[in-house]
């Protein structure tokens, strides 16, 4: 039906300690709302990504619960305050139980 959702994340490679920077994420996904009907008048089953989680070094820093009102190919941006170097793990949770994951390294240096 569609290709596997591909996450795209923009995290600056290097930041200064204490710097607050924006993280932008995008994932390809149709976000089928469960409100639409097919040509036969049958409701098309809902299939959305219902949750986005951002972790840094294993600690959850930001979460978003998405409803069917989120557009296809969902975009999410948020901020993070640099403290130490490490790795982000971004997880998108699909209605069908799949998880899509992206890992991005962050270097904090003065």
């Amino acid at each position, binding site marked *: 039906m569609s290709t596997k959702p591909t996450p795209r994340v923009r995290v600056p490679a290097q930041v200064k300690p204490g710097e607050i920077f924006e993280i932008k994420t995008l994932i390809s996904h149709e976000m089928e709302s469960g*409100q639409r009907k097919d040509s036969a008048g049958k409701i098309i089953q809902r299939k959305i990504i219902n949750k986005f989680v951002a972790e840094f070094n294993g600690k959850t820093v930001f979460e*978003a*619960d998405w409803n069917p009102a989120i*557009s296809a190919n969902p*975009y999410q941006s*948020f*901020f993070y305050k640099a403290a130490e170097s490490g790795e982000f793990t971004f997880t998108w949770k699909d209605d069908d139980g799949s998880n899509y994951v992206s890992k991005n390294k962050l270097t904090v240096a003065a």
Partner: protein
Amino acid sequence: MVWNSVETTRREALALASIFGFAALLAPKMSVADEQTVAAEIKKLYGDKKLESGKIKLDVPEIAENGLVVPVNVEVESPMTDADYVKAVHVFADGNPLPGIVSYRFSPACGKASASTRMRLAQTQNIICIAEMSNGNLHMAKANVKVTIGGCGG
């Protein structure tokens, strides 16, 4: 003969018109959330707690040409320290089939309580935003978006 055929077509036309009229009446109208549904959702989350104004900057376009992709940015004023930060932000719409749009959970590590996404809006409606602070205070902001083409069904 001529009269007859005219009569028939006219009758048919009338019959058709009435059928369509009925169909329009009977067709399951898409249920739409309204102010009450949104209020009920907020009550479910926070009971009858007082909703203060201010602190929230809800950034949505005044007019959205395409209801399928409407940018929405929420920024809540807060020092974002361990003692004082924004815990959660909920965004609702009062004219979509479902009232909920998105719920965020922030942590002091965010440094700034700001997040952007894109939403679908079925029609012109209000966007309602609730922010829950770490001390339990609630803030509310509201904005109207005029939608030219709805982003629902199809």
